[in-house]
């Protein structure tokens, strides 16, 4: 469904993503882990067609994310970092805008929009301007827009960031609910989220892929067991000062 093939991205002299490769199939939920600045968002932006790789290839549903961008993007639902949304629009009009841009209209659009708002648990706030909503509801509006067209691939950049514990549970439940029919990537730095929703985990740091396996394997790989210990051992291994403190 989704292929990242030796992706490389440079920002000036800094190599943000350095040869990251992985594939994702339907039914998988991939937890994309790494410290801040590891290259998670940059990798996701390349997969979403918002950034062109300097080397390697990104493909969605067999379509190249650069050469065949529109076809790749038609199969993708993307929640960008920070869940940007137009503050003067209501969640309903925001979701409808995305659907219209994808060629939806009439009853099919209304049905898709209603379902997305319901799944993102936004019903009561669907007609208020997004600018007046709390951070959690704003994020859910952006999430609704990402899932509305029922894409086979979902890329969600920190979908639970800034949500309260109940809202986090709600989003995790939604991801589990959609998991069987979709290929989903979620980036997070909340490690307890990984065993809760992900069937697979990838760790990247300094642009390089360090681990690719199940959350169980990840937990076993670290000293003393547990996802957190493994994460720390892996991402700090080449930085002894941070590791010691």
């Amino acid at each position: 469904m989704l292929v990242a093939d030796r992706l490389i991205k440079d920002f000036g002299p800094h190599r943000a993503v350095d040869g990251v490769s992985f594939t994702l199939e339907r039914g998988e939920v991939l937890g994309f882990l790494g410290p801040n600045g590891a290259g998670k968002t940059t990798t996701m932006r390349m997969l979403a067609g918002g950034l062109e790789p300097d080397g390697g290839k990104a493909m969605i549903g067999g379509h190249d994310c650069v050469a065949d961008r529109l076809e790749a993007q038609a199969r993708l639902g993307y929640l960008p970092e920070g869940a940007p949304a137009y503050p003067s629009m209501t969640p309903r009009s925001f979701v409808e805008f995305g659907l219209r841009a994808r060629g939806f209209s009439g009853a099919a659009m209304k049905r898709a929009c209603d379902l997305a708002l319901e799944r993102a648990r936004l019903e009561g706030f669907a007609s208020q301007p997004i600018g007046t909503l709390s951070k959690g509801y704003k994020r859910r509006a952006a999430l609704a827009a990402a899932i509305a067209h029922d894409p086979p691939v979902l890329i969600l950049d920190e979908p639970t960031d800034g949500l309260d514990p109940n809202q986090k549970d709600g989003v995790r439940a939604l991801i589990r609910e959609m998991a069987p029919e979709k290929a989903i990537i979620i980036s997070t730095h909340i490690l307890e989220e990984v065993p809760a929703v992900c069937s697979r985990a990838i760790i990247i740091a300094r642009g390089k892929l360090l681990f690719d396996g199940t959350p169980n394997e990840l937990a076993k790989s670290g000293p003393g067991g547990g996802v957190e210990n493994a994460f720390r051992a892996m991402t700090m291994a080449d930085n002894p000062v941070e590791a010691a403190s």
Partner: protein
Amino acid sequence: MSGLLAVYRRELTAYFQTPLAYVFLAVFGFAAPAFAFHVGRFFDTNRADLAPLFDYLPWLLVVLMPALAMRAWAEERDRGTLEFLMALPIPLWASAAGKFLAAWSVAALAIVLTFPMWIAVNYLGEPDNAAIATGYLGTLLLAGAYLAVGQALSATTANQVVAFVLGAGAAFLLTMAGLPFVLAALGENAPALVTEFVAGLSALDHYNAFQRGVIGLADLVYFIGLIIVSLALAGVLIAERRGGGR
């Protein structure tokens, strides 16, 4: 096409969901006749035409069109929504055209607000209505050119104030280029070729042709060409962002 229409619809709604369109229409609706009556001495000319209006409209458009255009891309960049827009399966030219047509629609509505003056001159005398109609067409095209240039410049920055200043500066230069004193000054100091080139850039010359009741091919090509080149420039500038500073 669905992408263009979706962007057009969203942009047009956005103008009216914020006070922007209303403030713009009110200022334009007030300023255009004010210029015509006070500066253009609409009644004192004793002529049944809209020259007092058309003579001053370009200067009003120089300031007001960039105000309408400045948000086009700068706001998307500032709010991060550009990331959302660029992840939609729509070509960039469709986004650029949708944004332009929405702003142009608001501008057209503002120009329509000066229609009472057209009715007034018909009531007071017997104007050349064909010339007034082409005058309005020229105004619409001039407004479109300033908007397209302003939107292209809006793609260079995430700051709307910077976008406005750049847009107004560009519109001012395009308008000034054809004024006799500018060309005279150039004629004394620059080669004839440069003077001719600057005169050819002048929006005012092409605009004035429409006021005389003439729809010249060269004038149409000038305005439509300027609009298309500017929209393409906006598309290139935004596409450049996918490169991430390569």
